[in-house]
């Protein structure tokens, strides 16, 4: 299946989906050294975003969150790609400065944790491979 959206930041990636219906605040909500979601009661609490195609509705919280994505990239713990329903400025800026492929305006309910997907951010397209 092919889902069409909009490019936020260019690049291509293929990998496994980590999905949540809850918004993510990277500042304070994600450990910048390990990639683990640490926000209390978040559905992804205890799971790492490292090396995943991270799918969530939108970002929330402080603009310092952009730098947390940058820290994850430097630590080798960044998501492979980010897919949103509507990307907010904190996530958009974070993806640009850390060069993480990102798309939004995607019907994210079609995705679920564990699926393999190909993200072609240049064209704003996500393809479900299995």
């Amino acid at each position, binding site marked *: 299946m092919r889902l069409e959206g909009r490019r936020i930041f260019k690049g291509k990636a293929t990998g496994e989906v980590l999905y949540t219906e809850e918004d993510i605040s990277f500042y304070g909500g994600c450990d910048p050294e390990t990639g683990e979601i640490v926000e209390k009661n978040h559905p992804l609490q205890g799971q790492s975003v490292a090396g995943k195609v991270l799918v969530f509705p939108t970002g929330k919280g402080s603009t310092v969150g952009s*730098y947390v994505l*940058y820290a994850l990239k430097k630590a080798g713990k960044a998501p492979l790609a980010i897919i949103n329903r509507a990307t907010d400025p904190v996530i958009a800026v974070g993806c640009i*400065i850390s060069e993480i492929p990102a798309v939004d305006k995607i019907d994210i309910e079609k995705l679920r944790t564990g699926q393999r997907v190909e993200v072609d951010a240049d064209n704003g397209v996500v393809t479900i491979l299995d």
Partner: protein
Amino acid sequence: MGLELTREEQRMLDGEYGKATRKAMEIITTLGEIYGANRLIPVSSVQIAGVSYHNLGEAGLEYLAEMAEDGKVRVLTTLNPAGMDLTEWKKHGIPEDFAVNQQRVVEAFAKMGVITTCTCTPYLIGNLPHYGEHIAWAESSAVCFANSVIGARTNREGGPSALAAALTGRTAEYGLHLDENRYAQVKYEVQAELKGTDDFGLLGKVIGDRTKKKIPYIVGIKSATTEELKSFCASVATYGGLGIFHMEGITPNQTPVPDETEIVTSEDLADARDALDDEDAEIDFISIGCPHASIKEIARIAELLDGKTVAEGKTVWITTARPTKDLAIKMGYYDKIERAGAFLVSDACCAVAPLKGRFKGLMTDSAKACFYARGKNKFKTEIRTVEECIKEAIS
């Protein structure tokens, strides 16, 4: 995409002006596309946030160092507070390793040509836009002041997007740059006498908590000082996420007056005060200067502290911008404050300095400072007038 670029803007995006400018232009154009802007517009002034090493961390610093390799600001650009007084930090108990890293952050900004003012009140010390001017400011209290009190035009920028505007001299035309997004949406009738920065901070909390991002048109305020307005701006931005408000007879922007009306009574203000007062607060820290104190406020505090002594076990920080501190030194205010055992701290404030665990309870005149003292530093808080704060300090 609807976003059209000029030839020069396209060249920035293509990397002809170097790596940092390309990255900056990617940020500006992406935000423009997300918000449906049709074009970019020049900005004449930038205020950058994200300066305290405490918030930035090593990764943020690395990003700034990378941008500083070939990035240079194109317009007047000033800087938010750092985590410490850049010269007297030792005296204030800031750890050496933090100081070293904080200096590296400030140096990275300086290398890009940013004027390292380190204040949240750029409009008090030389970065003062005029009515109608398009600017790109971060620092929520200053954004609110610029849009509302001055009538300049800026969105609520974040650290990286403000830096991007500085490096390109551009921002995307959306949000608060456009007339239609600046008009009032709900009227607030204030039926209470307000006096002092603490009262104006409480009004900011009442309206901020209630307004759910709707732009307020406030009536019933007979007069307000610049200091009271800066306190209100900080509070309404902190509690309500607002970038603009209108205050009848006081702020300059034109707007239709909304029909929907909310009433603010003195009981509402008292409730807000109760909400910020922790019953069991044990006050060992008194701080005034959130947003940074003006020279007028410092003169008053110096008068109150003259010949007095700060009580054993209490620490007092009066926070301000460096040029204001220099002026306070020249006028003898610094000596009066410091002789009493209080500190006149420049470049920093109680919200961004690494103070967690150092104090139990903060007394301040600032509703915004209460928010950060509780959330970030786990202090208990009490909000009082400046006079009451100083009285507490010397009792």
